[in-house]
């Protein structure tokens, strides 16, 4: 751990300590990021009006927002766990690209059914995550470095696998077409996009995991003080490997959804997704030095980013300027998070 990081952590814990005297204070804190989201939603619904028609609050648009948020959101949930144990995972975008490509290839060229594809792809995600965790803990290399390497490896494999081009997905019952049931991932159920349902489900499961289970406790304890955790009999290495594996699986799940959304699996997709996920986690109030943060926070963080993107798009802001705005908002959101 770097000097700066260690000092920051000490400061943060001090600050955290003086702030969070009671559960109610915590609750106010959580409300704060919800407040940020409310501000941005209000902005969007006030600004995006054309010819008396509200473009943002239009149901179709809202569904689009949630759908767009889902991919990043699912990855960000995994990223939250990794960051809580004071790690980082840069390989998530590459895993998404690789798994989307593999999913398309398996269905179009290898006669895999939907279930087989889903399982195989999740397994690939798990494997990469497992390696990330195992290499960084067993060889004690910082996860930043390890996942930087696996990002390159996964991306390389994806391009090699497909010869560098995207594999289009067309549905049908013939052998060389993807099974129709896979397209469910881009459908809606009761008007809600399936990716959004997946995102909501995953968020609930992992929020509960952190809050109600032993595993969740261990995650927070390890992020807060690894030595103390080890001395308390926690199998630190195991928990960390599990966390990285979960992050890999969730990235693969995002890859499956991505392929269904675009009707293709492209090895060049998902570039920069790791940064979006980290941004969502940070906006959601999770401390990058570990031990502090929640899934609901991350969900709100992902929503803030998504609504922002959508709003700037509806306002026809220049693409490049959009990036500038996004950067500024990230800083503002994190600062807002901190202030009392």
């Amino acid at each position: 751990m770097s000097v700066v990081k260690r000092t920051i952590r000490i400061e943060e814990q001090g600050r955290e300590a003086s702030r969070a005297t009671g559960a109610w204070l915590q609750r106010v804190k959580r409300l704060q990021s919800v407040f940020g989201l409310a501000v941005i939603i209000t902005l969007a619904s006030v600004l995006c009006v054309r010819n008396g028609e509200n473009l943002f609050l239009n149901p179709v648009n809202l569904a689009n927002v949630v759908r767009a948020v889902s991919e990043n959101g699912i990855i960000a949930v995994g990223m939250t766990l990794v960051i809580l144990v004071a790690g980082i995972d840069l390989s998530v975008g590459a895993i998404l690209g690789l798994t989307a490509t593999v999913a398309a290839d398996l269905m179009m060229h290898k006669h895999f059914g939907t279930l087989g594809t889903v399982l195989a792809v999740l397994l690939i995600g798990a494997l990469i995550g497992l390696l990330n965790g195992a290499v960084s803990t067993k060889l004690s290399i910082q996860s930043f470095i390890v996942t930087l390497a696996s990002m390159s490896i996964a991306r390389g494999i994806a391009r090699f696998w497909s010869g560098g081009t995207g594999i289009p997905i067309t549905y049908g019952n013939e052998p060389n077409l993807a099974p129709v049931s896979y397209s469910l991932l881009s459908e809606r159920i009761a008007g809600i996009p399936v990716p959004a349902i997946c995102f909501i489900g995953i968020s609930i499961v992992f929020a509960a995991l952190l809050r109600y289970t032993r595993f969740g406790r261990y995650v927070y304890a390890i992020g807060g003080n690894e030595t103390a955790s080890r001395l308390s009999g926690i199998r630190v290495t195991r928990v960390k490997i599990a966390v990285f594996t979960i992050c890999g699986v969730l990235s693969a799940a995002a890859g499956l959804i991505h392929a269904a959304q675009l009707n293709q699996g492209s090895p060049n997709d998902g570039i920069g997704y790791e940064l979006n996920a980290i941004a969502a986690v940070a906006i959601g109030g999770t401390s990058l030095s570990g031990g502090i943060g929640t899934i609901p926070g991350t969900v709100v963080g992902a929503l803030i980013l998504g609504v922002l993107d959508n709003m700037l798009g509806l306002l026809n802001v220049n693409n490049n300027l959009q990036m500038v705005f996004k950067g500024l908002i990230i800083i503002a959101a994190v600062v807002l998070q901190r202030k009392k």
Partner: protein
Amino acid sequence: MGQDAVLTLDGIRKSFGNVHALKGARLELRKGEVHALMGENGAGKSTLMNILQGAVGDYEGEVFLSGKKVDIRAPLDARRLGIAKIHQELQLVPELSVAENIFLGREPRTRLGTVDFKRMYRETQPYLEALELPVKETAKVGGLRLGEQQLVEVAKALSLHARILIMDEPTSALSESETRKLFQVIRRLSAEGVSIIYISHRMEEIFELSQRITVMRDGEYIATVNTREVTKDDLVQMRVGRAVSDLYPFRETSAGPVMLEVERLTFHPPAGSARKRLQDVSFAVREGEVLGIAGLMGAGRTEILECLFGMHPGHTSGVIKVKGTEVRIRSPLEAIRHKLSFVTEDRKGQGLVLGRPIGENMTLPLLRQLSRWLFLRFRDEENECRKQMESLKVKATSPATVAGTLSGGNQQKVVLARWLMMNPDVLLLDEPTRGIDVGAKAEIYQLIHRLAEQGKSIIMVSSELPELIGNCDRIVTVCEGRVTGEFMRAEATPEKLLSAATFRSEPACQS
């Protein structure tokens, strides 16, 4: 207000949420005096000093320096006014060297603007020499022992050439001889006109050093007295609000069967580690017995406990037997499974997850028992925690209180609570009363006594010889990683223990 008061604090109030840490605290400091500040755990001593040092900006009340009203809102204000503080919880950067830590933020520069390391190292030396601290200026602080780190904090404070020096439990991790050296330095400083505020739970030190004493209780000012005019009992009465009798409970030694046996424990620390070697350490503890380990700092006392607890697998050899059967302990988890528990001396680094609630801190090793399948049983957990908090008198509103907000002594109690909760057979205690006030100390001694009566074995390391002699049935002395003597309670005296523990380079120690 005395004429020669260099510093006066009056009507200081401070609340953290609904915790009123200070409710009108007062303190008057004269030039060149050593002024002791006393009070139970959580009385507000550290908070008051944090205010003085500028670490707590928003408080109510007035601060006068040499009769002039001043405003201290940030650490820099305090430094400018000539106030320096040695922290109770060490605030050093582990990855930096001793010299870099001492000069952190005000490093000497060369003409090119880069750090002038040569000058920095040169200027560090006198401080290390004054404290007779045998470490290199270039050594990484993280590799030093807790006691050595504490002296580096002292050196850092000295280097600020402050007019007012605050020492918050500076000796809690020091050995006898280091404490002596520190006292010499304190006396010299006070002769030079530096005023010192000295916080300690050790009565002897306060009587030896201080001219005046201010007592606090529950965030309030109780009294300021001349040290010569009071007795220990007066002070205890003032601090606790009641008398504490019988510091060390009497107990018949009841020798049960052997619980834990250690044969030829040898430990070769990995290269670059600051841990000390152990060579052929053998001893045994019986059920219901309290075994003390005495030795100077760096003798290997902590290492013995660490090796028993499986913290150095792969570097340790020797045989460990629990209840007669040989066991292999290759991790803390395995140690816990054999019902060993370990209260470490460094509660901040190795003990607590400061950002989490104390309840979570207490139940960490016990979660398997406290959950059904994967899910935590919150109600049982809370009940367990409340029970322990009550029995150890932890001063906190609920198990949900964040550990980092407790006073130093109460944090120590939380660590103790954790390891008692798992109902261990063998309790390894490394400086268990570090930073704990008399009242609580007596409680912890009672506790040790009770545990021994329940048939548990206790191995206790302490730098306070009276504490060892008062509590232990038997004491072994170690020196440079070897056992150099063994004394039954009846024959142990501080002099005998000290001479056995300082065999040092004499042949007896080598053989």
